């Protein structure tokens, strides 16, 4: 019973936070671009803007193209959202505050989040739209390429903490966060963040959405609530990435003076803002450049940090 209540609470919490992360992003982008950002709905800070957006998307007409593969088209948004929400099941929000304390937490997260790719490809293929198909091909290329450095760099904390359990990894960092381990920690963190941002389709890696070339990529035919699902998945994914980065490298809820929950929230917020900052100040790079970065730079680098982690552990 407690598990049920807890899972509902997590689900509601994540959805609520994600809604307001969109507002945060719009406000932040506004400030960065010397604008104000949304303020009319829920004056003066636009705090009702996410509600207005949700209502707008709910009442929109749900268009299904006549030539679309209806099954794939309708199933895709669900397949994109669910894996991201599953990730939150194993994330420890505090000591003993985790829904499913899996011993293979890291593996679970990595495995389940790659299902998203299938959803994206189904959306692209099911839309029967040339732009969407191009975007789907890009998505597969990009995600498969970035999965490799992402997995290898996530193994560094696993080796150091000698556990795949996310709670154990956090507990291990009570003296020093992994990111403070000389050279090894920083390199692994950078590789992890870059690959994770590519997985989450953020600029400069958002070629699957690629507004200026492919209009909206795989989402081009979606409207209304189905579009909202993709949107939700995108932000939930970013949130999950922020949580993972904090847990694997930044010591989770560990920190002096302040209570654990505050530390965790603060760190997640910082990582999330870092992603936003990068997004709103860079332009997009090309598919071939993204793949080159993955295979020629990040992949060797991730192997190197894995080696360093092994040496560190033996020594």
């Amino acid at each position, binding site marked *: 019973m407690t598990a049920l209540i807890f899972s509902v609470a997590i689900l509601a919490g994540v959805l609520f936070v994600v809604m307001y992360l969109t507002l945060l992003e719009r406000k932040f982008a506004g400030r960065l671009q010397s604008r104000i950002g949304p303020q009319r709905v829920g004056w003066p800070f636009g705090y009702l803007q996410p509600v207005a957006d949700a209502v707008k998307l709910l009442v929109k007409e749900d268009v299904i193209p006549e030539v679309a593969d209806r099954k794939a088209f309708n199933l895709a948004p669900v397949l994109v959202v669910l894996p991201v929400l599953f990730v939150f099941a194993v994330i420890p929000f505090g000591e003993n505050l985790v829904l499913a304390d899996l011993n293979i937490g890291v593996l679970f997260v990595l495995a389940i989040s790659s299902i998203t790719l299938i959803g994206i490809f189904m959306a692209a293929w099911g839309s029967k739209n040339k732009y969407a198909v191009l975007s789907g091909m890009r998505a597969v290329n990009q995600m498969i390429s970035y999965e490799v450095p992402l997995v290898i760099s996530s193994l560094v904390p696993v080796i150091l903490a000698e556990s795949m359990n996310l709670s154990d990894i956090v507990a291990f960092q009570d003296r020093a966060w992994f990111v403070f381990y000389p050279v090894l920690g920083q390199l692994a963190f950078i590789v992890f963040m870059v690959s994770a941002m590519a997985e989450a389709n953020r600029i400069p890696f958002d070629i699957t959405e690629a507004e*200026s070339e492919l209009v909206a990529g795989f989402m081009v035919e979606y409207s209304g609530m189905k579009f909202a699902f993709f949107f939700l998945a995108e932000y939930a994914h970013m949130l999950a990435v922020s949580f993972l980065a904090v847990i694997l490298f930044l010591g989770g809820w560990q920190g002096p003076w302040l209570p654990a929950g505050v530390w965790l929230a603060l760190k997640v917020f910082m990582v999330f803002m870092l992603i936003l900052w990068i997004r709103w100040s860079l332009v997009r790079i090309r598919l071939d450049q993204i793949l080159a970065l993955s295979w020629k730079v990040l992949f060797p680098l991730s192997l190197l940090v894995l080696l360093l982690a092994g040496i560190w552990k033996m020594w």
Partner: protein
Amino acid sequence: MTNPTNPTADAVHPLQTQVELEGDTLLINMGPQHPSTHGVLRIILTLKGEEVIKAEPVIGYLHRGFEKLAENLTYIQIVPLVDRMDYIANVTNELAFCLAIEKLMKVEVPRRAAYLRVLTSELQRIASHLVWLGTYGLDLGGALGGGTTLFMYCFREREIILDLFEELTGARMMYNFNQIGGVRYQPPAGFGLRVREVLKKLDKAISEYQDMLEDNYVFKVRTKDIGILTPQLAKSAGAEGPVLRGSGVKFDLRKNQPYSGYEEFKFDIPTGQKGDCLDRAKVRIAEMKESLKIVYQAIEGLPEGAISSRPSVRVAAAVKTPEGEVYSRIESPRGELGVYLVSDGSAKPYRLKWRAPSFSNLSLLPQLVAGHKVADIMAVLGSLDPVFGEVDR
């Protein structure tokens, strides 16, 4: 199959690369409704995976029949009409038209008016290039990301230029500032002071963008070695303005064939070396800085006196031109803007032909994007800076 009467007719023009369509190519239609086709360009793309095999621009979606319309308007009514031609750089259109008429009627322009014309066209050049830089950000980064940030910054700077124009002419976009024989409005009191203030702000901002361009790895990686335009092709295809100068050809009508007193100003013509998108971008940014210099000189040395050699005409039919034809050209922000005017001696032109730089620059697109990736189409198109009000006319 050769054409027996004209054997050269079937020879492949350098701008038309012939493509054998293979089984695994994808034909895709981009535009006219598309986020980054700079208005209403339609491109029919033949892709092989991500690679562009052939790009075929289709124009005409913004055709408003200007040239025909002008034949039914008196000369004075045409001036506000041509404002709508290249809607990013309005004042240079008026200038091109007024210079053509003045050449035909052999009207002298007072020195103060000539200086004011230089002042406005250079401010307009900066405003136009700022719009280009902003939209280039959108082309490279999309509307949700760093591209928008650049766009917003550029429009912030453009705004203070538009404020100056508003002060001078009362309008923010469609100025109707030039008239036959001079300009329409005296600058208000304290105008020079405010121009100097704006120049200071712009200089700081443009230097920032220059640093951004030279130091930003992501920007460089997207533009370097993309869409290389050789000087030979640039010349033979009639490339204009920053596109031509980006390929290293030092040609600028303001120097090579000065008009409206440009010979009295000191400025350089920035050129590129390779002719890729990065060079074109660099040339435009450097041009903004040169324009700042010209505006400064114009406001420093602004002579006193009348602003028009002809009285302001209230009756629309009052100007009559002698019979004849004339071609006059100026350097607009996009390149050589030519006006060919045929007059039959009546109050309306017999024929008014615009030689639009955007049009000839756009014709290079198929040649420049062939062999590149899909994403590069936008980088190349943006670097050509076409304005469809001018392409389609």
